[in-house]
């Protein structure tokens, strides 16, 4: 996949996260009420989530555009949206009517299917970019086949000398 397309996907994810985070960081009390509407957590837990999640979204949005941090940001973003999608599945199965508050405000009733799709698509995008852009992250067993930096560096230097034994 072309680097520009991968960058475009990361940028789109960053825009979504900034938009969602900014709207919720302005009124965490309203967001806490939306969280309570899912009837999964207590009032103190909802307060913690309402204060923490918007800032996490803003941090992730910035990190997605910084090369040194984007792999970690992609991982957290993918896990976050996957958790949201799972939450909507549970909500739909329980038949609970909720107001998402995903993009701030009290909003209106959010159908579970709509909420699920709005979480699933960014989750899939994040997993896709993570898999393509950082293959060792997606295949941790591949690490076992990769020599350490030290031995790799020695192997590279030695191949330049025809008198040295071949690297293993």
């Amino acid at each position, binding site marked *: 996949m072309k680097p520009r397309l991968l960058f475009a996907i990361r940028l789109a994810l960053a825009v979504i996260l900034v938009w969602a985070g900014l709207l919720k960081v302005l009124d965490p009390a309203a967001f806490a009420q939306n969280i309570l509407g899912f009837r999964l957590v207590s009032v103190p837990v909802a307060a913690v989530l309402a204060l923490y999640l918007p800032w*996490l979204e803003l941090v992730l949005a910035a990190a997605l555009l910084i090369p040194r941090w984007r792999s970690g940001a992609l991982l*957290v973003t993918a896990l976050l949206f996957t958790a949201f999608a799972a939450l909507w599945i549970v909500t739909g199965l329980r038949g609970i009517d909720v107001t998402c508050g995903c993009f701030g405000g*009290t909003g209106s009733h959010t159908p579970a299917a709509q909420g699920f799709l709005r979480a699933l698509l960014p989750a899939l995008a994040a997993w896709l970019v993570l898999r393509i*852009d*950082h*293959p060792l992250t997606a295949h*941790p067993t591949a690490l076992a086949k990769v020599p350490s930096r030290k031995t790799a560096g020695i192997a590279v230097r030695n191949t330049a000398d025809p008198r040295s034994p071949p690297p293993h």
Partner: protein
Amino acid sequence: MPAPASCRRTCTVAFALLLAAVAPALLSAWLHPHAPSWSAPAAPAGTLTWQQAQALRPAALWIDARSADDFARSHVPGALSLPPADWDARILAVLEAWQPDQPVIVYCGGNDCQASHAVALRLRDELALPEIHVLAGGWPNPSAPAP
């Protein structure tokens, strides 16, 4: 092409990002004018909590002040729909269902919704119903058991 990140480095960065959001969240908890409450708020005067409303439930007439669409999706069993916009069309049905001295409980979409208060005021001022309450938290109610 840059070297792919190791799994350990990715996880380390991920953990660092999770930690990075903690400080601004703590500042928000301390300084934000709209910081969330850490405990369930007491019901304002003139309102009932879900638990208090349950004590009246068998005898009370429940009024749903939300839109017809929200009412159709779900409502308190036995409630009648009376959104402010449909007052003239639906008030007769409410009056036919109401029994003398029967308590009335009005609800809408939540604590931020004002429709329930508006309907409660009209029931009191225009029809002089003697006992009218507003349900704190609206419907679906956070204190109600999940279906």
